């Protein structure tokens, strides 16, 4: 800040004003984000060790250095879990974003009917909580309760197994698809509506078809929205939890440490190893941060080009 002795008093006040406005946000942010993160980092260096000998010696929390980090990074299950979410992302992200973009473009065509109803209908599954959706799909997937399987049986097609590899990945992606498409479509659609119509008029005068307009004008112009939704999807994928965790008790193919977050939950609340869970969370968070920054940097250069 440049010094200006004459205007010090008013300047100071105007400098303080934004801070005061931000106070509630800062207080909430500190209370519910900074402090818990700090505590998690503290916990990640702690572990339970036995105090006193004997078969029933008491466990006490002590400082264990980088033991927990070492355990997390060398745990084959944790690493395998990361591999599974990446494989899952390979299926789910393109299909969610592809469908979201398709629906947004269709809704944005000039002669579309019942736009409000359709938009709501596509968005509505987003309102169904992930756990409930997973339970419902669980019933639809299990051979004895599934109507799909009943139909297959009538057609003399063998019992469908939705939980075997690699179908399992599609079964899981399908659950997320319903809510993901609605949410992402709204973001892309909003971005489409912000494009000035004069551009389309110019294109039409030049003889462009709707398809060409969509392909050559709309998609390039909503690219920033696509990057944003893509980034959200990547983060959401790495944090995959409720779908596999809800389906786990129904299947034999989903292990209790199937994705990183399930592993973390397992450590924290089943194995009573808060330190290990905290360390694994920190590793996951750092991984997500680095990946998002790399993705953002990569796409920023391409989509925002000169403006960046």
């Amino acid at each position, binding site marked *: 800040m440049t010094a200006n002795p004459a205007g010090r008093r008013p300047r100071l006040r105007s400098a303080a004003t934004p801070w005061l406005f931000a106070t509630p946000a800062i207080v909430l942010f500190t209370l519910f984000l900074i402090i818990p993160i700090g505590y998690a980092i503290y916990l990640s260096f702690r572990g339970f060790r036995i105090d006193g000998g004997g078969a029933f010696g008491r466990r006490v929390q002590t400082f264990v250095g980088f033991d927990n980090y070492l355990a997390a990074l060398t745990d084959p299950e944790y690493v395998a879990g990361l591999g599974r979410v990446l494989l899952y992302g390979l299926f789910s992200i393109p299909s969610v974003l592809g469908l979201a973009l398709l629906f947004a473009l269709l809704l944005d065509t000039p002669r579309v009917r019942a736009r409000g109803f359709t938009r709501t209908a596509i968005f509505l599954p987003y309102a169904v909580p992930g756990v409930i959706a997973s339970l419902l799909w669980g019933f639809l997937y299990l051979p004895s309760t599934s109507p799909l399987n009943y139909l297959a049986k009538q057609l003399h097609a063998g019992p469908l197994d939705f939980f075997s590899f690699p179908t399992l990945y599609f079964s899981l992606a399908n659950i997320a698809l319903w809510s993901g498409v609605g949410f992402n479509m709204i973001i892309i659609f909003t971005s489409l509506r912000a494009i000035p119509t004069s551009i389309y008029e110019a294109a039409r005068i030049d003889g462009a078809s709707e398809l060409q307009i969509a392909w050559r004008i709309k998609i390039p112009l909503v690219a920033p929205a696509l990057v944003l939704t893509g980034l959200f999807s990547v983060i959401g994928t790495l944090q995959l939890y409720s779908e596999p965790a809800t389906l786990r008790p129904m299947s034999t193919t989903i292990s209790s440490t199937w994705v990183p977050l399930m592993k973390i939950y397992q450590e924290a609340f089943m*194995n009573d190893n808060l330190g290990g869970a905290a360390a694994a969370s920190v590793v996951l968070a750092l991984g997500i941060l680095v990946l998002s920054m790399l993705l953002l940097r990569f796409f920023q250069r391409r989509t925002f080009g000169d403006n960046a």
Partner: protein
Amino acid sequence: MTPPSPRPPRPGRRWTMAAALAVALTATVAACSSADTPSSGTPGTSGTEAAKGPVTLQVWTWNLKGNDPRAKAIIDKYHQENPNVTIKLSEVGGTADTASKLLAADQAGDTPDVAQVEYRGLPALVVAGVVKDITADVAALKSGIEPNIWALTTFNNQVYGVPQDIGPMMFTYRKDLFDKYGAKVPTTWAEYAKAAEQIHKKDPEAYIASFSAAQLEFFAAQAAQAGAQWWSNDGKAWKVGIDSEPSLKTADFWEDLVKRDLVKVEPLLTPEWNAQVNDGKLLSWAAAAWAPNVIHSVAPDTAGKWESAPLPQWTAGDPAVPFLGGSAFLVPAKSKHAKEAAAFAAWLGASDEGSKLQLSLDIYPGGNAGRQATLSHEPPKLMPQQKDFYQVADQVIKNTTIPVTWGPNVNVSQTAFGDALNKAALNKTSFREVYKATQQAVVADLQKSGYTVTK
């Protein structure tokens, strides 16, 4: 804080609102931090500040459900006899959920006064220091429960819980379908395999039972029946016997059944399992005396078609089995009314009156009086025609001579074992390797925590 801006009305109002919000938030923080100060004082000793005035006991249990009139009748009875005590029931989930919530509650210094856990979950909580030693509190009612049942909650001669219900192991099966398919009710596991073959041959869609890898306790009981001890200790060091030869033999048995597709690899009590039990495609469940009530809750229409028999054996004629399932009431170390809590737990589990009342909840009481009362009790709703159900169960308990010790890290083995066994069952790979890997994981975890493990 800086005084409000002199600028006129609207910003000023926002100012005060922001300030008010900030104050409100600080107040909340203060409230949060003050909430845990009283209890952080002297954990564990609070039970000594005795019964003056009325006491409210928070009880975490799934046996007594708050909205169940039968449970309410029991609580009303206790209130009548102890006018200064009020019992508040809540159900927080099964053993795993209760254990994790209890650990969190202990850290927050705000525990319930009584909590129910299955026997296998107790040692982990004891070594975590969240369970109170109630040896002295229950001494007066000690004779109400047999010593082999007290052994389930006693470690190093200290009592850490009052046994409530027990699970004498039994084989519950569809009598009608066993007869229809000409399968003999197995008395040995070899006969079990034969019956499995017979059933699956007669109806390719039907199986003698499901194979649920998540049921660690069942496989531990299988090994115990064969003479292995998964966990044992001499007071100083732990010994882990998951990969001992008798234990591995039981692994071979199940591997064979799974490979020959004679048991259905799938978890228990899923919508799928329930549907198949209802359809008569899963014909039995080797579990304990509590199994009929569980089956009745998911397949009430099949009542009258089931019967229970003693569990099959590895050696013909050997009647011994361990307990499977069942649960105890413990008193958390930080309970503020530990004395009253222990008194309530002991009344319900060990007193004549309490253990008899448990029978009204359709659970198998661990107390002597309750066990005696079962003999003149109606059979479970699933098998109203099997008049000797409780006589059979009573005989099983008399033969229940295999003590099972649970280690302080059962939870660690539970998931490692279940996941690996599921994988082996699906990929048709060696079950022995699963047992050996679990052994290694359990030993490594014990050693990491600092326990001595002997070979």
